[in-house]
């Protein structure tokens, strides 16, 4: 150390600066993406997707998921395995109706306050009280009432189950179940705002691996490592600068020139090209779990109330062309599979493939040979993929005398349009966090008609199977239930699955340790530079 200082002093400042800068570069990660977080509080009203990433880094959960290597070498989280994060260990009661967590004794929040069970209780109560997304996410794991959460003593936290729900434990490891520094938050709470929602939008009160060093909404967020982090191995990257660069072309240029280390959310064409190029850039790709791009049809109104018409559409879609010219091959095909479905894997290919003769025959059976007119809508925010796809669908349906008008809906209006449930035909995508087929079906096919059941599909037989699968302990029966509802859904085809989209991240070759997470946000805790 001393000799180095001497050397520095002896030589000119200029000669030393690059060495220091080199160190800095090695421990700094520069990321550019299209949009950044709109607030720092995942439980806040209207928190966007990048805000999930803030929760993931600046806050801890009681548990986290294990890791596994995927077939293509990419590291992924393992939804079947729960590992300790803030909780050192946990014990499920003998009757299976509660769980008791032991917290780490030496864990502190960023301001040095020790983490206690009271903080955990406060955070879970908050998730239920904030309403909207966090509340619904907690409910998805049967975490519905504050009485379920109990701080037994400072280091012990108990959750009582309402019912035996296999999603309860995994649901406590999703970003929404983050643990907040209750003392700090309460200091900044007001009478009108008892949960400090306003303060936590711009400040963090967590104990995660990274502190938010600077946050400029719409520009950048800078993370700094929390050196006293106890809930896992200390991250190697000390500083992360995440900038918003809206132009995808520029982000690609920045990466190619080595000015940024990582980017995501690019058009599939760019990822397809970058993964072919021989340069300093590599692309890490994983098909997004539990998610699909699909063509949905509103079953409450003619002509799509007729299953034959829907099947005809499923047989006429130009699947291969869509894969090639809308997705540039970035995704796993969800068509041309076996009938009936073979296992409980989800999403799984449908038995449909392009077959004009079959489609025409089905239209004839339905008495619809003369065709009809309809509108195909899509979210303009997803236009890079949806627009070419819509044109291909339009072209293909013309062969069945179906005249399709294309309706592009701006992002802000899309959700409102979905809620109205009056779109006859749409291209959309959906992904579920918890990787269970029945979780996906609960949102998208169940008769409770959630907003993502965009087709308003209601079938008591399917509902029964979904509800049974959710709480089924017996593996064989569970598999039967799952196969059952997939089969019905694929025969009735209210939605035609087309492709399981790819989650692509492009980075410099020297960036290692990228891990795929269900929330799709980058986790800098495992990343390092070679």
């Amino acid at each position: 150390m001393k000799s180095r200082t001497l050397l520095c002093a002896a030589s000119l400042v200029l000669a030393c600066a690059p060495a220091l800068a080199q160190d800095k570069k090695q421990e700094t990660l520069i990321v550019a993406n299209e949009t950044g977080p709109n607030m720092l509080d995942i439980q806040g009203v209207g928190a966007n997707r990048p805000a999930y990433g803030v929760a993931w880094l600046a806050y801890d959960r009681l548990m986290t998921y294990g890791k596994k290597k995927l077939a293509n070498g990419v590291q992924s989280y393992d939804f079947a395995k729960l590992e300790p994060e803030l909780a050192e260990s946990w014990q499920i009661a003998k009757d299976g109706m509660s769980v008791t967590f032991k917290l780490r004794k030496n864990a502190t929040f960023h301001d040095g306050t020790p983490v206690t069970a009271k903080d955990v209780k406060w955070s879970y109560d908050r998730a239920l009280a904030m309403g909207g997304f966090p509340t619904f996410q907690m409910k998805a794991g049967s975490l519905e009432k504050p009485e379920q959460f109990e701080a037994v003593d400072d280091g012990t936290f108990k959750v009582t189950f309402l019912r035996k729900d296999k999603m309860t434990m995994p649901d406590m490891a999703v970003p929404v179940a983050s643990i907040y520094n209750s003392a700090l938050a309460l200091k900044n709470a007001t009478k009108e705002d008892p949960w400090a929602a306003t303060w936590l939008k711009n400040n963090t009160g967590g104990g995660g691996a990274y502190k938010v060093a600077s946050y400029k909404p719409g520009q950048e967020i800078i993370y700094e490592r929390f050196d006293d982090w106890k809930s896992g191995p200390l991250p190697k990257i000390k500083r992360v600068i995440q900038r918003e660069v809206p132009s995808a072309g520029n982000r690609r240029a920045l990466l190619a020139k080595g000015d940024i280390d990582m980017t995501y959310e690019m058009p599939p064409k760019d990822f397809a090209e970058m993964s072919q190029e021989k340069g300093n850039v590599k692309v890490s790709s994983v098909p997004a779990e539990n998610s699909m791009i699909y063509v949905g049809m509103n079953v409450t109104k003619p002509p799509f109330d007729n299953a034959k018409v829907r099947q005809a559409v499923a047989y006429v879609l130009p699947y291969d062309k869509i894969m090639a010219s809308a997705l540039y091959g970035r995704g796993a095909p969800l068509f041309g599979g076996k009938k009936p479905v073979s296992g409980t894997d989800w999403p799984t290919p449908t038995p449909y493939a392009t077959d004009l003769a079959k489609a025409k025959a089905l239209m004839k059976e339905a008495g619809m040979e003369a065709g009809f007119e309809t509108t195909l809508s899509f979210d303009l925010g997803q236009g890079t993929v949806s627009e070419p796809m819509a044109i291909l669908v339009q072209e293909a349906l013309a062969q069945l005398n179906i005249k399709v008008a294309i309706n592009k809906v701006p992002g802000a209006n899309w959700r409102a349009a979905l809620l109205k449930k009056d779109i006859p035909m749409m291209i959309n995508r959906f992904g579920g966090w918890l990787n269970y087929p029945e979780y996906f079906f609960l949102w998208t096919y169940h008769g409770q008609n959630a907003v993502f059941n965009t087709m308003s599909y209601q079938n008591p037989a399917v509902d029964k199977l979904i509800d049974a699968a959710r709480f089924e302990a017996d593996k064989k029966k569970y598999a039967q239930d799952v196969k059952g509802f997939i089969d019905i859904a694929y025969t009735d085809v209210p939605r035609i699955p087309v492709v399981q989209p790819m989650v692509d991240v492009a980075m410099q070759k020297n960036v290692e340790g990228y891990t795929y997470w269900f929330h799709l946000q980058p986790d800098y805790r495992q990343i390092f530079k070679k």
Partner: protein
Amino acid sequence: MLTTILKRLLGAIPNLIGVVVVTFLLTRALPGDPAAFFAGGAGTAEAVEEIRKKLGLDKSLPEQFIVYVRDLARGDWGMSHATGQPVLTELTTRLPASLELTLAALLLAVIIAIPLGILAATRPGSWVDHLCRGIATAGVSLPTFFTGLLLAYIFYFLLGWAPAPLGRLDPYLSAPPLVTGFYLIDSLIARDFPVFVGALKQLILPTITLALFVLAPLARMTRASMLGVLSADFIRTARASGLAPRTVLFSYAFRNALLPVMTTLGMVFSFLLGSNVLVEKVFAWPGIGSFAIEALVASDYAPVQGFVLSMALLYVLLNLSIDIAYGFVDPRMKIEN
């Protein structure tokens, strides 16, 4: 003079009231549903209703308007739900970014356009005139995002002369302490020269892009106005009296030709400030234009209203200062007491 300015400012109040009412009504007439948008991920119908209540959108329109005006009177411009920040904070951090870029572009454009226009006018039909016409046509017909991307591609990607289009500063530098919000000025106040150089470098490409765009109207206007003045009687008289060509050109002709150029300058300035969204997007510039567009896309009422209102305020001030400047250029135009 002071009373005149005060009178003008008072006269602007009815305009501002009109702006407040109209933007309020217009934002409410947008087709999107902010509650549905902000309900996000698991937006069930109940969640949307809950959020509607939280945003105060379940109240009737007149009630919402009263709340809005009351808050405005207290200096509270509302919250941007998309960014989670008070609108006033957003505007005050983003407006300087836009202003710095716009002013730099205007300055560059003026430095090039006015000599070009004068030269073209004094030598009509010459190569300078053709060059002026060529630049003007190209500047107007090339969309800014295209010029921006092209410049970034050539000077950053291919040649490596320009810095990465990553916003106002290189990620390794940190912003100077806030005084004016203009990085060039703030860094000089802080005597932080690396930051000054860094900020200047980041400014170059977006400035050229914008300047190319506004060059056209300025150069054309200078040329036309100079041509008109140069053929006027008093110039012929001046020439006949044997005044030096330089004196005729600058003291008499140019000063008289400046008025329409200044009007154009004012118009171009206000137009630029609100509409350089595309340049901001290309160069990741955290300006006010992209903020307003994003707010519109999200049907986020408060920032849209705030944006329009701040633009209206800026227009009022701009018009006033241009009117005052007229007085200096041409005493006949001095605003009356």
